[in-house]
């Protein structure tokens, strides 16, 4: 109720609320495996601030990817509340969730999740194409995004002609092309060598610093801590936090 009144402008958000882009309250996710119930997240309560570069860390099976999937609307929680940019997610239909992902989120996955049939530029401008932009606008925005990740010279190359690090930078360019409210990254450096990994993390850091991009990243590399503002540590589906 309060949320909808906030959205309609009847109630003004507090400064704290304005600064918060993701609010999570008592979020749980339990998987059913046969007759077994496997809890992956256990009553997680958390806020993510605008412009924050936060990382979710934890051991394998701690629930870090599960948490990212709930926040990225790739999965549906068993219970709890998620409010993103003032919108309570549980009230969205499937098509609204799709639209929400397109307009407000950017994703970078562990694998270089770009389409092999498309060039780097085409991969990058796909989201804005889906938003109805013209071919020229798509190409211009795509080139801008590629420039930001330092790949404007490789625009017409197809994924198989790019290195792993370059493919991941294409994925990042695609993730930021529509100026998303939040960029989700699920172990984006897991398949990269150390040099490429540092390049990607520096790129995230630069995006966060230069354009205030909110980034929520899952990683299991402890040394990634040096690039982030905040570490959210998960243990057995529960949050233990510390500043980066």
């Amino acid at each position, binding site marked *: 109720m309060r949320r909808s009144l906030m959205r309609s402008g009847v109630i003004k958000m507090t400064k704290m609320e304005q600064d918060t882009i993701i609010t999570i309250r008592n979020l749980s996710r339990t998987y059913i495996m046969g007759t077994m119930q496997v809890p992956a997240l256990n009553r997680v309560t958390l806020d993510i601030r605008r412009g924050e570069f936060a990382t979710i860390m934890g051991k394998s099976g701690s629930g870090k990817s599960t948490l990212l999937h709930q926040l990225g609307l790739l999965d549906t929680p068993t219970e709890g509340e998620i409010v993103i940019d003032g919108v309570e997610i549980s009230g969205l239909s499937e098509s609204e969730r799709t639209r929400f992902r*397109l307009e407000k989120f950017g994703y970078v996955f562990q694998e270089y999740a770009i389409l092999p049939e498309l060039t780097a530029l085409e991969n990058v401008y796909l989201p804005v194409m889906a938003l109805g932009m013209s071919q020229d606008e798509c190409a211009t925005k795509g080139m801008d995004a590629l420039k930001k990740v330092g790949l404007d010279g490789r625009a017409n190359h197809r994924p198989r002609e790019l290195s792993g690090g370059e493919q991941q930078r294409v994925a990042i360019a695609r993730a930021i092309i529509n100026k998303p409210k939040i960029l989700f990254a699920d172990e984006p450096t897991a398949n990269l060598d150390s040099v490429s990994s540092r390049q990607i993390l520096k790129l995230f850091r630069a995006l966060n610093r230069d354009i205030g991009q909110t980034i929520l990243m899952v990683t299991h590399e402890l040394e990634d801590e040096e690039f982030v503002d905040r570490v959210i540590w998960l243990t057995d589906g529960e949050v233990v936090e510390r500043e980066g």
Partner: protein
Amino acid sequence: MTSTTTQLKISAFLAYKSIAKGNKGTSVLTILIMALAFVNLMFMSSLFTGLTDASENQVIETLYSNIVIEPKDEETYIKNPDSILKKVNIVPGVLGTSAQYLTASTIVHEEKSGAWTVRSVDPDDEVLVSAIPEMMIAGEYLSKYDRGEIVIGKEIAGGHGGSLEHISLGGVVVGDTLEVAFKNGVRREYRIKGIFDTNFIQSNQLAYITEKEMESVLGTSDMTSQILVKTEGKGGEDKYVEQFTMLGVHEDIKTWEVYAGIVRTVSQSFAAINALISVIGLFVAGITIFIVIYVSTVSKRRQMGILRAIGIKESIIIQSYVFQAVFYALCGCIAGLIVMFMVLVPYFIRYPLVFPTGDVTLVVEQNNAISRGAGLIVAAMIAGFIPSWRAVRETILDAIWGD
């Protein structure tokens, strides 16, 4: 929400990229299979159409021409045939008429004999309504004033590989003498002037003598059993029948279709067989496309998950696969038409299939090609939709990271 135009644009873009930048071998193979499916659909229907067409043409060209004027029910002969011929011949579109007298006869040569129909004709008129004068395989056709000469079909003559060799005269040749016993009891000897082969079993059992000869047999003139009328084209005979009636021809006027009863029955049976084969053909084509798209969706399962994750609507993904299926079907139709028109049709014109009803070639009808092409495209749309629809039903997480 994403507009329909934007959706179609992205679907077409993804489909185009998938085909253009995807595996060329798979695309070529799929199009080849679609082309074969289309040829399969077209071939049988074209063959059946060709068979029907050949049979109908034989009825028209060697038996009854386009229209037959017969005596009224209660009469044996046509009264005032000259008056009728005058009326009919002035109608625009009438290319020729031939008054004939038909009689049953027994034809004998040495020890062999048989019962056949003898037609008497004016050869000058007959060439205008019948193709038989052009189908001589030995000797020549009758001339207007021939007397004591007969032209016979190869099923009567025998010795030419006919289907009714066992009841033929056993291989008579031009110049041999035949004895003909007419229905009125008159017996005459005739020299064989020519033997014809129409490739049509029914007309190959006819014998022809001149009108003048028949008059001497009957002892009277102006006896006409039927008048054959040749008109322009095939299929518009009813309008001529109407005009003849309006001009005062009150005889029994029938189109060739009335005499093509057996052909029509066969045609209807072919149509039923053809429909069955078409349904099976479409089903096989649909299953083929289904498998191709299914394999594609399985191999691109993760890609589909990624597209959905970044906010591409499921309907766009499904449409892109439907577009691909339609593209394969369309290319298959075009390739199939090329095979039909550039290979099969010319081949069968050169080497027609020999049926008892005549030489059969492939007749590709425009409506047939359109309906079968449309059927193939609809089958492809369904076959493209089902696997992609099933694929987008799984969760995004299963699609990207599932087993």
